[in-house]
């Protein structure tokens, strides 16, 4: 039985193959040229600095949400820019309207992007983009054991730790 395949599906297939190939090739190139010094930290699954295995019901740092929200703002912007870009430069429409269409579309998108850029400026000025650094307070406690003792013990046991892994 003959099945008629839409030729535009071939383009999509090409896209998928190209995407897969791109990932494979870049992984391969990285494998060839990178130095190979694994340690347990590096070998663990990458999860943006979170513990990869464990219950999902845990407390996230609140600053992730702020960053996520700001990220969303610009993701939505891109979402609108794509369909806009498709019709913005439409030669037929441009010709039919004597170029007015282009100016109209450009003005419309500029207003949209400017308002979003204003949002970025706002969060920037308000300091929501500053990653709050922990400010450790150094204890004023003075122990009777001299500082050098701690260091020598730390050194002694750290050898064991690294040896085990």
């Amino acid at each position: 039985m003959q099945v008629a395949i839409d030729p535009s599906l071939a383009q999509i297939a090409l896209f998928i193959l190209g995407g897969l190939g791109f990932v494979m090739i870049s992984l391969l190139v990285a494998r060839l040229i990178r130095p190979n010094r694994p340690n347990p930290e590096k070998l663990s699954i990458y999860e943006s600095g979170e513990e990869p295995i464990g219950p999902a019901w845990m407390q996230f740092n609140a600053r992730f949400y702020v960053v996520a929200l700001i990220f969303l703002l610009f993701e939505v912007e891109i979402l609108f820019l794509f369909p806009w870009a498709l019709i913005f430069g439409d030669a037929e429409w441009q010709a039919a309207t004597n170029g007015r269409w282009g100016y109209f579309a450009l003005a419309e998108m500029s207003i949209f992007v400017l308002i979003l850029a204003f949002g970025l400026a706002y969060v920037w000025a308000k300091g929501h983009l500053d990653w709050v650094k922990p400010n450790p307070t150094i204890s004023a406690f003075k122990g009777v054991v001299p500082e050098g003792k701690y260091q020598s013990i730390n050194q002694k046991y750290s050898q064991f730790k690294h040896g085990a892994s």
Partner: protein
Amino acid sequence: MERLLPFLDSVPEALKGLLPEMLLLGGILLVLLIGMGKQIRPKLLAAVSVLVLLGYLALLLPVSIDTTQAMGLGLGVADGLGWFLRILVGAAALLTVLISLSSTEQEGSYAQQAEYYALVLAMCLAGALVAVSTHLLLLFVAIEFLSIGGYLLTQFHFTAKSAEASMKYILFGAAVSAISLFGISLLYGFTGTLDLNSYDFIRGLLSSASLPVLLAAFLVIGGMLFKMAAVPYHFWMPDVLSHTPVPIAALLATLPKLAVLGILVRLVKRLDDVSLIFVDAAVDWQAILAVIALLTLLVGNLAALYQTQLKRLLAYSSIAHVGFLLAAIACFSSLGIQSLLFYGLMYVIATYAAFLMSRSADTHQLILIKDLTAVGRTHPWQGVLWTITVMALIGLPPSLGFTAKVLVFSALWESIQNYYHPWLWALLLVSIGATVLSLFYYLRIPYYLYFKGPAIHLSGNKMSKIDIWIGTFLCFLLLLGFLMPNGLLELIYRVKFAF
């Protein structure tokens, strides 16, 4: 293609029609820009907001209300109904900014923040867009805009309780939005258009079965009833109002409700037109609205009987007032729409007066009715203002509330004569009964003001000068509207809405 040039030609006209709303947008950006500075300038922020809102109202004044024409590229309509609601929405936002100038210590420091002013302006913008929309796409976007402003403003006490109220509001609101969006998508599926005025919309509804249309319309209308806090979507209202500062509570009690009136009237009218032609399985929208209005009146009034907190009492009373607004819509007549607008105006003034006066008992964040004890004797002028406000809320003469209620009752009576509808009879009886019932809980306020003693919060009953002036002005309007209603009535009678 051939539609492209006329579309481009219509853009300047569309922008001209939306000039007041664009001014608001500019105002929002300006307020945020001021807020970006290092210094906190609450006075400047309030001044800019007041000027922007005054400019918005001034730009609206010359708009013609005798004609009906499409605006905003066919997404909305410029008619008398929309114009009146835009004015009311702007007035509500203006009053909110004015009364937040004198926010008390108990209410917190919300009025210092640029975001607060930007959100109030944004609520006004969203409300104006909802009020003029005739296109379900604009309607959904504008209602979401309105809701998100409301969720954020609810949070402005910055306490655990206000976070709880805000969270309830968000969860409930998000679910209702999703349901309403589902209804809109169903309507789009039936008709292939979202424009209520287009011929395709009516034809599409006529050619589909009545039960799915009923379901879809119900889902869409549910979203509007949620914003109006009509039964069965009223649960968020008491929590939200009792845990927000007074200006925000007054804004949330008035602006969203008024904004959705316009589109609710237009949508119900369109559906009713269709069901008149549907002879075999007609949906009686008048009965549906009458039942919702009746339930809202009953629930609002009965629940208000048991309240001990002042702001909760006002919240249930505002649910009861929504019942009257819906009853005016259920009349399905020109007089009904006119009485709706008159009632809406009275509702804004009386609600703002009541919330403002609740500051006379503002000794802690939860204001109890008990806190008003003997205020009428220690602060006589506050007592007078309270009494006028309560009279307007009940609908006693000589106040605007009386005129508004009489208009609603006469519109109902006229519709009963025209339609012989049993549910309208029930609605009329229940609304009269509800008015009598409301005497019991509203009169508790003057009772505590004058007859209970001794005073418990002598120091807490002081209101700022600005508040007293604004309260006096609002009460003056309430009395003036009763004594000289002619100018207002002439304006409102120009709003023709063909049912």
